[in-house]
Each structure stands twice: as C-alpha cells, then as structure tokens.
C-alpha cells in the first residue's frame, strides 16, 4: 500500500490557479489559500510541491499581542510604512475559532480600511479552526503561497494566547510582541518563554500615562531574563536564540502612527542582524523542522488509521484484546503494533 504522501499528482484546477497566480492574479491567490484551508495536507501538498522553488524570498514578520493591545491597528501602520516604500505586502490576520460553535468572527479588516484598495496590499483573515497552536498549519501554507506570489513582506498577526506565540516564532523572521500599557498584572501572567521568542517589544497606546511604567517593567524583566536558567519546556527555543540580540522596547501610538517609522527601523535592524549572525538560518531550520514534523505526523496518522481499519492482520490483535487476558490490554497491544510500525518506517 502506497503512503499518500508519495503521490505527486496535481489537480488541473490547482495547477491552473498556480499558473494564474504566477501572472499576478489576486483571485487565484485567494482561492489557493481557500484550498489549503479547506483541503488539508492532501491539497496543500500539491500546491507546495509546485510552488516551493519560488518561495524563500519574503521577509516574514510575526505580530502578536493580547486582545485590545491595538495590534491590528499597528499592523496596518507597519503595512502603510512599507507600502510607502513601494513594497508588496501581504497580511495574514488570524483570529480564534469559537470552541463552542466552530465559527469565528474575524474583525481585523476593519482596522486596515485605510489601505483596503491598495493593489500592493493583500489582507487575508483566517480562523485558526481550533488547531493546537493557534497558527494552524494552513497559515504556514498561506505564507508559502504569499511568498510565491512575490510578497516582499508577509505579516502574520495573531491573538497572543499561549501556544500561538511560539507558533509565530516558528514561522517568522522577526517577531513583535505588542502590549498595551497599564493592564495591571498581565506582565506576570506572561510566561517566561516570551522573552525567548520576542525580537522587539512594542508598548502601544503610548499616549496613556502608564506607558513608561510598562516600558520599565519590560526592561526589568529583560534584565532578569538574561540571567535566568532556561525553562525546561522552552529549552529548544533557547538553543537557537542568539545572546547578542537583546529585544529593544519601543513605545508607539498605532492610532496616530507616532514612532511607527522608528519601529520599522528596529525591524530592519533586526533583519540585518539575523542575516549577518546566521540567526535567520537557524530560525529557518527550526521552522522547517517543525513543519516536517507536522506533515509527517499528519500522514503517519492517516497511515495508521488506514492500517488499523483496513489491514486484516490487525483483526488478530483486536481478537487478542477481546480475550481479556494479561498482556492483551489495549496498551500492550498498541505497543506491539507500534513496534512493528517503527520497524517498517525507521529501520
């Protein structure tokens, strides 16, 4: 039985869309993203295989922050600055899917209205569809599509809850964490890991009194973080973090645009730093390692499912379970199957 990952067929429909995208057709770009959102890795595979050689050129900025931090407005300002330089910008705005209904409300476009009709800007709203890690696999594929489409900059903007920060880090070259001033104790609530993934801290809404206080808190936290031992959970992050880059803290006002040009300068200097120190390549290696893990997990799960449900041999194992004897419990049987499985795949 051939593993589904090996098939290299491509639907004509998908191929045509890619051809159109190559000619700059924006609707084709949009439809390709819909395909990776709805079709799962079986569809994504066809697309990524075809476009991969055309990717690797975009600069990817991750932006995260708690709801109400003003990150969408700031994203719009950053995009505006880059648009002024004549660059092609794509934005992926990720919002959470409701765990109750499976639906989602995606309201980020409204804050980007001033740039709506600029043809150099492409905004795509995505629901994370409840996948672990906030940034769904589809987002990573959408990044590749925007990359192949020829975006100079891709901004991935997502709500800052838990795992998604780590996910942004996996996908972005430069990660911004946005914080509003004076929301009380949330700085304590931020996991130690945040300093590890952040390249630039932005304290937005600088017109508020508490902005300076928040900047000081962050600086203090960074001072401490430089000396602490790595958190076990995040050890894999630490390995690739260069000690030389201390995340700068900058105040902005996303509504008025104050300090946004200065923020762009910081982003650019981090970009330069990453390139010269090799950080960029480390990050890329990290990103693709995880991407590969995601892909393998997906297809292996599918293979396992197929094995369990269609392989007649399995029925013998199931019969053993049904005997209710010592050593025939579902765990012991699964261990035996897994052993056979590893032999097939990894020996």
């Amino acid at each position, binding site marked *: 039985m051939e593993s589904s990952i090996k098939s290299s067929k491509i639907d004509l429909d998908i191929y045509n869309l890619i051809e159109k995208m190559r000619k700059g057709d924006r609707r084709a770009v949009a439809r390709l993203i819909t395909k990776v959102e709805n079709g799962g890795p079986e569809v994504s595979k066809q697309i990524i295989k075809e476009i991969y050689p055309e990717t690797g050129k975009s600069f990817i900025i991750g932006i995260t922050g708690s709801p*109400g931090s003003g990150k*969408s*407005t700031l994203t719009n300002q950053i995009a505006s600055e880059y648009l002024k330089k004549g660059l092609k910008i794509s934005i992926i705005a990720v919002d959470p899917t409701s765990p109750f209904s499976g639906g989602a*409300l995606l*309201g980020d476009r*409204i*804050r980007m*209205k*001033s740039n709506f009709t600029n043809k150099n800007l492409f905004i795509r709203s995505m629901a994370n569809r409840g996948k672990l890690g906030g940034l769904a696999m589809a987002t990573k594929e959408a990044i590749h599509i925007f990359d192949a489409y020829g975006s100079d900059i891709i901004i991935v903007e997502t709500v800052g809850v838990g795992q998604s920060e780590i996910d942004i880090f996996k996908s972005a070259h430069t990660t911004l964490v946005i914080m509003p001033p004076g929301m009380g104790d949330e700085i304590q609530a931020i996991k130690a890991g945040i300093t590890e993934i952040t390249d630039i801290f932005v304290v937005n809404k600088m017109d508020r009194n508490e902005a300076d206080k928040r900047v000081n808190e962050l600086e203090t936290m960074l001072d401490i973080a430089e000396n602490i031992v790595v958190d076990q959970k995040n050890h894999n992050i630490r390995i690739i973090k260069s000690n030389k880059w201390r995340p700068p803290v900058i105040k902005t006002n996303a*509504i*008025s645009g104050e300090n946004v040009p200065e923020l762009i300068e910081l982003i650019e200097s981090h970009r330069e730093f990453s390139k010269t120190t090799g950080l960029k390549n480390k990050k890329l290696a990290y990103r693709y390692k995880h991407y590969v893990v995601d892909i393998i997990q997906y297809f292996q799960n599918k293979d396992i499912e197929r094995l369990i449900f269609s392989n007649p041999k399995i029925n013998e194992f199931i019969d053993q379970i049904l005997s209710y004897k010592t050593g025939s419990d579902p765990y012991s049987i699964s261990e035996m199957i897994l052993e056979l499985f590893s032999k097939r795949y990894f020996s």
Partner: protein
Amino acid sequence: MTSTEKNRGNLEIIKKEKERWTNEIVKKSLERVPERKRVFKNLSNININSLYTPDDIKNMDYIKDLGFPGEYPYTRAAQPTSYRARFWTMRQFAGLGDAKETNQRFKYLIANGQTGLSVAFHLPTIYGYESSSPMSSGEVGKEGVAIDTLTDMEQLFDGIDLSKISTSMTINAPASILLCMYLAVGEKQGVPMEKLTGTIQNDILKEYQAQKSYIFPPEPSMRLIVDTIEFCTKNVPKWNTISISGYHIREAGSTAVQELAFTLANGLAYVEAGIERGLNVDEFAPRLSHFFNSHNNFFEEIAKYRAARRIWAKHLREDYGAKDPKSWRLRFHTQTAGVSLTAKEPYNNVIRVTLQALAAVLGGTQSLHTNSFDEALALPSEEAVRIALRTQQIIAEESGAADVIDPLGGSYYVEALTNKMEEECEKYFAKIKKMGKGSILKGSIVGVKNNFYQREIANASYQFQRELEAKEQIQVGVNKYIFEGKVIEPPELIKISDEVSKEQIKNLNDVKAQRDEALAQKCLEKIKEIAQGTENLIPYILDAVKAYCSVGEIIGVLRKIFTVYREESIF
C-alpha cells in the same frame, strides 16, 4: 406611639401578612395554575416580583427622594404644574428629499397642530460630505433633508417665523456648523441670536458608543462641543447646546438601565468638560437637555424617566456644586422606539407607539416624537405621520393622563423600580469613574477607546435577539400570533427619487459659482488656522457659513487638522 413607630409596626404586619398570603393563598393557587414564566424580568434583566407592598420601599423618604414637582430632586416632575399648564411639545422629527420638500412637510405638521420643529438631516450632512462627494452616492435626501449650504437652510425655513417656533436639529459632529446656519437664517429674518430657541443634538460621546456618526477623534470633538457651549452661553442664551441622547444607545440594542446610565454619565462628562474650560456650571448646565427612548416595557420606561431626574439633580448639586435649580432640573425629549416597530402587520405599530408615548407622558417628558407605523418599511408617509401626531393629541386631550402630575408616583412597584434603576445606574457610574480615575469625563473617553460601551451594548443586543428567537421575548405578529392572510395595505410609501441627488448637486454647484469665492476661501483658511490653536472656533464657522461655504468644505478643512476616528469593531 410616634408615627414612625406606628409605621414600623404597620410594616411588620404587612410583611407577616404577605408571608401568610404567599404561603397559603398564592401557593394553593399556583398548585392549580402555575405562573406563565419561571422568571419575570423586564428589558433590563431586572427580576420583577409578583406584587409590591410598602415593604419594598420601606427606606424611601418622601421629601428627600420624591419631593414636589419642579423642586429638588425633581423625581415627580421637572415643572411645578407639569401638563396642567402646557402639554408637552409635540415635535415630529422630519426631513426628506431636499429643503423645499422638507419645508412643505414642516408646514403640513404645523398646520396639523405640531408645536415644534425637528430636523432630520441626510447622511452626507451628518458625516460632513457634500452631496456631490462619491461618499454621498445613493444617500442624497434619503434619510433626511439634504443641506449643503446656507441657501438650503434658508429654503428649509422659508415662510416659518423662527421667533415663534423652537427647532431641534439632530446633528452631532457638524453641529456647530448647522447651528451657525440657523443663526444666519435668523439674522436674515431679523430675529437676533438671543431670541432664537431650539436644540442641537451635539452629543458626540454617544456617537462613539452607539450611533457611529462621528468624524473626528474624541478630543477635538469635545473641544468643538465646549466651543459651542461657550459661544451659546454668551450669545444664544435660550439655545439648548446639547441634547444628551440615550435614544440611539437604546436603538443600538442597550437595556433601559444602560440607556439611563450611559446617557447621564455622558451628560456629566459634558458638565466636567465645561467646568474644565473655566465656565461656571450654572452658566451652562441649565441649557443641557436630554433625549430618551420609550420602549415596550411600560413601567420600566416610566421608572427610567423618574430615576433620571433624581440622579441628575443629585449629581449636579452634590458633585458639581450647581446652585441654580435650573441646573439640577433634567428636561428631556422622548422618541418612541424605532427598533420596536415591525414590518409584519404594520398597523400594530400604532398600538405599540401609543403605549410607548403614554409611558413618556406618565414619565413627564417635555417633548415627544411618536414614530409612524410604516417606518419599518420606508420613510414615513404623510398619513402615517399624521396618525402618529394624532396619537399624542389623543393622549393629551382625551385620556386624562395629563391632568394629574406624576400619577404613578407612590405606586409601590413604580417607586421600587425607580430606586432599582437608580441603583443599577450608580453601579455603571462607578465603573466609568474608575476607568477615568475619578473623572467621568476621562472615564467616558477611556471607555469609548477601550470599547467598554460598545461591548456592553453589543452583548445586550445579542442577548435580546437570542431571547427573541427562543421566544422568551415576544413580538406579536412576528414570533407569536403570526398572521398569514392579507393585511390592509399601508398608505403609499414615500420614496425619494434619485433625481433629488442630481438637483441638489446642481444647486450646490450654482451656489458655489455665485458666491464670493475669495471670501469663501479666506474663511476656510481662517478655520484651518484657528483649529490648530485653542481659540473658540464658532465665530469663524459663522463667518464661513455666511460666505456660503458648504458643510462638506468646513468639515473637510477640520478633518485635515483633527484627523478621522476609526473604531475597533465589537460584536
């Protein structure tokens, strides 16, 4: 035995008797026929008991909490004689097509006994665009009258003596400009500013919170409002400078308590802003008026109006040091709830409007707009508008409801509910004050920027929709008693022809071609200059208006200086 002791003794007896009645009589009855609902609550989610007794208002002090009509704390009425001297002002909101057409509608309403004018402007005026702007496409004359320049305003009041009628104008971000146009029309008619009476809505906070017709960010918007207050205090003393409006907050889906609390908090924010400018509170507070909604829950609405008067009086006197009783006294206009009208069986709306109007009258409103029954279908037709006006006249002349002041005062239920509304309102005040670190003005602006109000309102409106779909809230003819047959056709619906737009744009261009262009440009330049400083803008806007600069031109200049506000959307 003193009378207090006697009262206390009585209360004990009533309490015991009520317990007995509940446990014996009611219980038995419920065993046979249970109540219709598990919980009874009003539109503010306040649970309603089956019966109210003196025990429910045992802490009420008549003199302190109710007093007498026209006296602090004004719970019973704003005026000492209330409707025994004069009925409320019957003021129907009107505006459609161009100035000429609306002028005819005004004259029709006056001929039918209306006693005040109320202007609805079309959306391009409200947002400060000229009728010729691409943003105005499809909107010219649709939801109100198209006003671009002073020429339109002259036409609007042609043949109407401004010394004899008061005019209310529903306009916010460009309020100062429309006020100036009105002053200029008055001057042409020979009516001096100090004699003109009327109201501009000029309430920008509720625009951010609910109605969404803001243009500039909150800070410059507040400056324009305070400029207007300052100018009118000195030059147009009989003008109501702000109509602090809960109507739109309610229409956006808030509860009655939210309407009450947000509106009054906004009012207090304007008071603080005036004081901050260096004005004496008693110089301007008497010219602040209010505007409430009248929705379906009859007693809740009445309690809301009574509570509003008491809360306003208390805060103005206690917190802001107002000494003039006119500063304490809350006067308000009411409009029946547009959102309660149904497109199905439109004639049923006449009955809804009647009940809502009666609630407003029993709550002591100073002026009233009754909605036309066809408004869920289109702009109101002449016949429907007349019936709406007749509704008020019937309540006034035939029902006897206007013959006694505050006839529901002293009702155990209404008093208990009035107290409850006040209590809930104060909870919101505390929240707003906390956001502003002790200042309601700062709290209001922080609340707007943090989407506090928007979120509160969105949640309430969504909850109501859910309840409606679950039939926990009933709309007769919509989710219960649905009638499938043919209903009587309403009178012919008003449609504004798209020709109005062409005509209006042509007129605008004509006015611009005929005006002294150098003077117009000079006036606009001057506004630009003054807007960047702190001097009062109103005199310069008045000059520009008289030079026939359009609303769109003046706002266009201010937009460049003040910038444009954008909200985050809250669902």
